[in-house]
């Protein structure tokens, strides 16, 4: 009885009294995620950017990788392309898409309206993120499969690193999307607000150019960027030559970014349009 879910099925009983079924966090999340998934399906622009770009971009990286001097870096074309592909997926299908989603829901006063109800703040943000994260996750699986099949990357030598990197990324990028949405005043400007972090991540996080082929000093700075730990962990997962201390360092950086992001969201996230 107590496990009755507050979805549409629970609503089929008319209740004269007040002994109403309480909603659960899982039920609320499911309702929000379902609505958000419907909305994602109806937003052609977001769909295109989220679905198409991450699946096409790796081809250009593949071309670039052909021209790179990978000798002595311990990298193969596959271990360059695969983390890049996953990076693009995180940036476009998760991060960029969610910046738009958060901004759109805020501008339509959906966030404010939801906040008057039983849904908690974190559930609102998480529920809205579920479809994008799911798309991103599916893409990562597809891209990994494609790289394994087409680029001869083989099975990862240290799969735990790769999984860890991915999980941290799926926690981090929705948070960063919420932070970024704070800096936009409209759905249109949300994409502009997302640009700096997109560009920095392309250039500095080993998405286009592996850190291993960068000058040391530059690489040291780039290691601190939010996407870098994920790229490094995934690459390390496949090459198997990432030391435990390097892996730990990457995890610490990713966790630190999550911490900073959560703090920023709690402190500054705007739940309604600026008037």
């Amino acid at each position, binding site marked *: 009885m107590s496990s009755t879910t507050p979805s*549409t099925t629970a609503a*089929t*009983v008319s209740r004269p009294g*007040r002994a109403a079924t309480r909603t659960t966090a899982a039920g609320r999340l499911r309702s929000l995620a379902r609505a958000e998934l419907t909305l994602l399906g109806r937003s052609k622009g977001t769909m295109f950017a989220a679905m198409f770009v991450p699946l096409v971009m790796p081809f250009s990286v593949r071309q670039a990788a052909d021209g790179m001097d990978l000798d002595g870096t311990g990298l193969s074309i596959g271990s360059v392309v695969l983390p890049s592909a996953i990076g693009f997926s995180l940036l476009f299908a998760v991060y960029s898409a969610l910046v738009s989603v958060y901004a759109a829901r805020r501008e339509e*006063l959906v966030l404010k309206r939801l906040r008057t109800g039983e849904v908690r703040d974190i559930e609102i943000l998480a529920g809205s993120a579920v479809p994008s994260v799911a798309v991103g996750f599916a893409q990562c699986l597809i891209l990994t499969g494609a790289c394994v099949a087409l680029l001869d990357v083989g099975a990862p030598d240290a799969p735990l690193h790769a999984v860890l990197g991915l999980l941290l990324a799926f926690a981090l990028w929705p948070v960063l999307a919420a932070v970024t949405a704070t800096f936009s005043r409209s759905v249109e400007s949300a994409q502009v607000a997302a640009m700096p972090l997109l560009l920095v991540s392309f250039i500095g996080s080993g998405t286009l150019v592996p850190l291993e082929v960068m000058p040391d000093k530059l690489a040291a700075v780039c290691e601190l960027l939010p996407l870098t730990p994920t790229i490094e962990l995934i690459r390390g997962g496949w090459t198997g030559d990432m030391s435990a201390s390097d892996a730990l360092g990457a995890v610490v950086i990713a966790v630190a970014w999550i911490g900073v992001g959560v703090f920023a969201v709690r402190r500054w996230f705007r739940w309604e349009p600026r008037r």
Partner: protein
Amino acid sequence: MTDQVIEVTDLRRRYTGGFEAVRGISFTAGRGELFALLGTNGAGKTSTVEILEGLAEPAAGTVRVLGHDPYRERDAVRPRIGVMLQEGGFPSELTVHETARMWAGCTSGARPVGETLEAVGLAARGGVRVKQLSGGEKRRLDLAMALLGDPEVLFLDEPTTGLDAEGRRETWDLVRGLRDRGTTVLLTTHYLEEAENLADRLAILHEGRIAAAGTVTDVVASQPSHISFDLPDGYHLGDLPPLPALGVTGHELRGRTVRLRTDALQHAATGLLVWARETGVELRGLDVRAASLEEAFLRIAQEATRGHEERPGSGATAARPGRNTYDEEKVA
């Protein structure tokens, strides 16, 4: 005290930047009571309601809804209240039914979606996207979502703004029905008619303060009545009988038109008419007007634009020093 479903004590709300939208207001609403906050735009209605809804914390003062702090004890309050914001709040690309389904999943004890949409006359519009609804239909969807969980307390922020006359009347009937079944309703409006029609008690907000409060009768009684007429030719103000003895509390002369203010309308009018008969003059343009809610509201609203009138004996009017002296009163 426990009978009070809504208790507001010395509430203040300050926005970042320092603007104080709510400046120390207090009121209560009991179970099954419909309390209206009436005021012009910017009077502080929404700022007050948002705090009651638990969306923001007061800068000072206390707020209790169903005996709980709506901000700090949200779990105790939220499942028992329904909220309708002043505007919007639903994704424009979802259909009416999808929106209702989403809300039902987030609302404890949600009634069947179809039944709820039926109650607001949207049953036939279930498949329509929110963006294609008319303004009135959007308001009704909003109301339906506020009612989804059979709330004990309902907050309605300008529920009929944008509705046509028929829609407004239907909403009133719906709200009255809820109140009769024991739902406590807090309503904000800038429609006098709405407050007069629905409210058991009301407070007129002005610049963040309560300028007048009570039942409609109370509020009206706190306002002066007016007598106006044209001064007969050859007569001066001084020729009238002594005004204080007539119970007149203030007067003004514009051209030849005299306007008297009184809290004892019958006494003042009788005195004036007896004088006119005994003197043998005709009072042209005679207008004897009892106070009305509209007048009370207009007077308070005007203070925002015209400055404040000095009115001894009116504790209900918010005194605002530092304004230009009042010299003229709008004749309604």
